[in-house]
């Protein structure tokens, strides 16, 4: 494997997103949401203004869990199928580059664009809030940003996998939307439904493990469990065993969610 070939593809993908202002648009969206939530998140309770980073992060988690998977899926669903459908894939593959290098280059370039816009967007909000944040709050916020990047990378990996399997862009976009619905909206409802239907007889013990089967849930747990105030607010301490709540372990699970779809995509793309 030649790293230089991966870097060439990745830098092109990244520069394309910079050039077409995709990165700027996403960063601005993240900044605006972060500032609005930080200042107006407690408006329903009758107060306006920044209160505490834990509450802000908890609100942002609820937003990010919808937004970042969607953005990542939109970003990556046509990474390969788009090249194939346009007819540029053959030319690319006739170059001295392997399929693995092409796939990884695409992935890393798109991941860099997503990570850059996420860090820039939330980072700008952090700069605006910094006079009111102590070091501990900044560390928490940085953890939130990092986990947001990981969440984006996991869904981007799923999107790239779809783009390898799909036969055309239309199908790939349909599959991406279906995937978003499943992981973000349906998955938790299914688990809850199973719990309710069986009167809590089924799933109680394996529920925490099943939550790891969804990167969106891993992201939620990763953030909520690092915030003491919010953990009790969510009542998660009673559901999730502390042994599984280790941020490093959850971080590894997230990395597995990045690696596994990419591995499957590579296997399929090489066939």
């Amino acid at each position, binding site marked *: 494997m030649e790293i230089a*070939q991966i870097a*060439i*593809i990745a830098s*092109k993908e990244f520069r*394309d997103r910079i*050039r*077409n202002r995709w990165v700027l648009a996403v960063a601005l969206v993240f900044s605006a949401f972060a500032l609005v939530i930080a200042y107006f998140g407690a408006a329903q309770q009758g107060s306006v203004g920044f209160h505490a980073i834990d509450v802000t992060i908890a609100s942002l988690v609820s937003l990010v869990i919808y937004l970042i998977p969607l953005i990542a899926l939109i970003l990556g669903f046509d990474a390969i199928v788009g090249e194939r459908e*346009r*007819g*540029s894939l*053959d*030319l*690319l*593959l*006739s*170059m*001295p*580059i*392997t399929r693995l290098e092409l796939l990884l280059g695409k992935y890393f370039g798109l991941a860099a664009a997503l990570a850059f816009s996420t860090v820039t967007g939330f980072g700008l909000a952090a700069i605006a809030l910094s006079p009111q944040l102590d070091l501990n709050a900044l560390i928490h916020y940085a953890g939130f940003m990092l986990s947001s990047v990981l969440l984006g990378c996991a869904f981007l990996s799923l999107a790239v996998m779809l783009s390898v399997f799909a036969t055309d862009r239309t199908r790939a976009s349909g599959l991406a939307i279906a995937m978003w619905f499943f992981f973000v909206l349906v998955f938790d409802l299914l688990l809850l439904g199973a719990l309710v239907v069986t009167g809590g007889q089924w799933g109680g013990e394996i529920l925490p493990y099943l939550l790891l089967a969804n990167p969106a849930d891993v992201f939620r747990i990763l953030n909520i469990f690092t915030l003491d105030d919010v953990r009790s607010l969510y009542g998660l301490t009673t559901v999730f065993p502390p042994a599984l709540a280790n941020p490093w372990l959850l971080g590894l699970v997230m990395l597995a969610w990045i690696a596994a779809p990419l591995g499957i995509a590579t296997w399929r793309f090489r066939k």
Partner: protein
Amino acid sequence: MADISPMQTEMDTGTAVIVARGVRKHYGPIHAVDGVDLDIRAGELFGLIGHNGAGKSTLFKMMLGLIPATAGEIRIDGARVGGGNFRAVRRAIGYLPENVVLYDNLTGLETLHFFARLKGVSPAECGPALERVGLAPSAKRRVREYSKGMRQRLGFAQALLGKPRILFLDEPTSGLDPEAIRSFYAVLRQLRSEGVTMVITSHILAEIQERVDRLAIMTAGKIQATGTVQALREQMDLPLWFTVHVAREDFEAVRAALGHLPVGAIDAHDDHVTVQCRREIKMAVIEALATLNGRVRDVSVREPSLEDVFFGFSD
């Protein structure tokens, strides 16, 4: 022409740069390529012609390693296509696909820079490559503003990056105007003089018949014949066409002069007659016409075109 067997494939692989042996590509019951043996020699301009769906593009893609063969083997410069050391060979290959799709958001120069980096070629080569295909004035325009012909030329410039020793050109003149086609073949002539091996597909047979060194006729996934255009003409034994310009009142004299020769039907037109004959009696026909003593105003002899040869093999 079912009785015409394929020409013996040259087995002198000593100078062959591209060697295909028993290559097949099956998609379920469809045999897109069905047992192809081919040798393409170093420095030659080799044409691959056939109907749509004959298997040319599939064979092309297998030669480039874009799709794997179901059976058989292709070697380029001695390296097995798709094998571990094929990356090095790829650096010596230029490819112009049939439908050149480049990146609309990049300029012509940026496009070449991107491909140059992938090929490990100095970006300094990009300017001269654009110059060579006549796109230097448009180097800084975005590809989305390029016409189809300009995109084709940019694709050709991309294929020329890195001074490739082997060029694969799939329908390279599609979308080019006559002047650009002439410039394109001028570049090919120059490349041939530099020893570059080129494989070209085209459905414009008249365009390539005088330009290729050898060609292969492909139908239904098989190579029907391989050789020079002249060798294929001779193998097909297609008739020559004489057009004899004479006054209408001399038509019968022409018939009489040729009456003793085994020529085909003599057709009368307004101011000329046409006659078909076999190659071996060509001189006898000329001598017979010479006996008409000045009544013949002009004679032209047309060799069977590549199109005639192609249909002879493919029908």
